[in-house]
């Protein structure tokens, strides 16, 4: 059994990074995730594992420091919150174009603009549809507990290197700030066992020079590169979809929710079942690749679905695409920094799904 600790979600990310053999963290303070950088600075990971931690002058610089270290095959990460992630989009697009592995953590707060420092899930589109310019996707993991904040750091690095693709942990202010008991995984050595043939660490006499770029002036080559990227994303859809199904087997109605909304919906499932409404919860763990097949399958057995998210309705579009019109799919969520209660969620299920369907 691993070490048991009571930790904030943000601290769990930081501790897990050290334990996952992360080589470097570059970041810039922003609420509600500054604890990641604070924890790392206080913990002196350079003495524990040799991990580099540096406070950058901006999110723009931080993501480009990530780009540089990623070019040399290092396990590198950054974290931020919504406005900071917006600033990083240029760099993320370059990282995706150049096919570099790295981890980006977004502890989402309410927007648009400076918005609020309260939790939100309104960055779903940005995280799952690309975010910056060009046709690209991130691997997006959505933790719904402090335990998963820690565990997904390791998983995200593994997936990032498997595909040579940036991975994102899409969290929110609730998961980042709340404290839970977690079991930490055993530290793994800071050794990268993935293919290193492409890295730029100096051209040795035994190989051609390595070049890392996202530039192809020839449009036909750029099209070919885009086809290659799309094939990679298709492979992710085949091999790395993750979800959790709670009380789905006999469910008549389904909540579809991720992150902190999934925790709230777990309670709403219990409340619904007490009232005699057979509700279940499908929790996407990977938001990209999205668990569309299981949702398609479940649309054969349930009468309606309610996508619950702290946004005006973003993931609901992917749920509708997966269900493809077979059953009603509606959205409910408080947003702009307000968190919905289990009671509100259940009431919405009854109003929007149960009543109209029956």
């Amino acid at each position, binding site marked *: 059994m691993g070490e048991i600790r009571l930790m904030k979600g943000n601290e769990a990310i930081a501790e897990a990074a050290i334990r996952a053999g992360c*080589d*470097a963290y*570059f970041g810039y303070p922003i609420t509600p995730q500054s604890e990641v950088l604070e924890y790392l600075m206080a913990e002196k990971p350079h003495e524990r594992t040799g991990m*580099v931690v*540096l406070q*950058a*002058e*901006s999110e*723009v*610089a*931080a993501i*480009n*420091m*990530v*780009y*540089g*270290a*990623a*070019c*040399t095959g*290092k396990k*590198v990460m950054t974290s931020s919150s919504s406005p900071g992630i917006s600033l990083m989009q*240029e*760099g993320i697009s*370059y990282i995706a174009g*150049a096919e570099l592995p790295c981890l980006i953590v977004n502890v989402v707060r309410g927007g648009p603009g400076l918005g609020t420092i309260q939790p939100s899930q309104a960055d779903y589109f940005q995280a799952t549809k690309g975010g910056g310019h060009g046709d690209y996707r991130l691997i997006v993991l959505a933790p719904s507990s402090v335990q998963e904040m820690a565990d997904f750091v390791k998983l995200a690095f593994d997936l990032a290197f498997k595909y040579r693709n940036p991975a994102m942990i899409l969290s929110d202010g609730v998961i980042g700030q709340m404290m839970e008991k977690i079991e930490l995984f055993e530290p793994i050595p800071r050794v990268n066992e993935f293919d290193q043939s492409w890295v*730029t*660490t*100096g*051209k*040795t*006499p035994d190989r051609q*020079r*390595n*070049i*890392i*770029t*996202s*530039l192809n002036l020839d449009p036909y080559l750029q099209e070919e590169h885009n086809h290659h990227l799309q094939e990679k994303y298709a492979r992710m859809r085949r091999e790395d979809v993750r979800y959790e199904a709670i009380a789905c087997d006999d469910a008549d109605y389904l909540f579809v929710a991720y992150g902190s909304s999934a925790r709230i919906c777990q309670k709403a499932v219990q409340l619904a079942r007490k009232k005699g409404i057979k509700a279940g919860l499908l929790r996407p763990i990977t938001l990209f690749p999205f668990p569309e097949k299981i949702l398609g399958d479940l649309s054969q057995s349930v009468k309606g679905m309610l996508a619950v998210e702290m946004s005006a309705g973003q993931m609901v579009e992917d749920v509708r695409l997966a269900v493809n019109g077979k059953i009603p799919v509606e959205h409910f969520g408080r947003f702009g920094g307000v968190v919905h209660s289990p009671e509100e969620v259940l009431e919405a299920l009854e109003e929007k799904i149960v009543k109209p369907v029956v």
Partner: protein
Amino acid sequence: MNLEEIIREENIVYRRTPLLTDKALSYCPGCGHGTTHRLIMEVIEEMGIQSDVIGIAPVGCSVLAYEFMDIDMIEAAHGRAPAVATGIKRTWPGKYVFTYQGDGDLAAIGTSETIHCCNRGENITIIFINNGIYGMTGGQMAPTTIPGMKSSTSPFGRDTAMMGYPLKITELIAQLPGTYYVSRQSVHTPASVRKAKKAIRKAFENQKLNKGVSFVEVVSNCNSGWKMTPVQANKWLEENMLAYFPPGDLKVDGQLVEQGKTS
């Protein structure tokens, strides 16, 4: 004496460094980029550090620098090369890391990355090509376009009341405690090319000392953007650019060089 007797190692007075690839340069004839590329590759060859060098190309005319340099290279987003270099050097402190940036890249869109990288004292080399214009996009006004100078976005000459002043970023960063060597050179005459090479060599050698940024500005021409012949451009450079951006060392071994005492 036959040809074979003449072509002997001891008779060679000039040889193209093998660290330049065979790819034809994409630069306009007479442009200073090609010369500066050669100087950097010669220095890397002479120091024998090819297997430990990582170069970072900018956005601009030299966006394809990696096509011409036979070393591991990375293409950075516009202005972000100093941050990219930081990420590499911090995780590979034993490697030689350099950025190659133009004036728009380094002194406009990347000013923040430049200043903070220099102020943190990253142990890297920055080569800064200043030709006073955005060459790649077709000759627009740059942060270093000198007063009165015409460009496609200052067609009547740079009016400082309306467009602001040229940024002497080299003077600015020389003041920062994180810079160890700051020099301004040019490559418009054989003598200036020799001096520029010495400065570039020093800027790479300094990385062994781990004392901060070594920064070499190379004032260069852009004969296409300036709408001049190469010879006219070099003459204009000497009379106008070098008057505004005087060549010489600004900081050596961490000490500011007194004004007027430039080497």
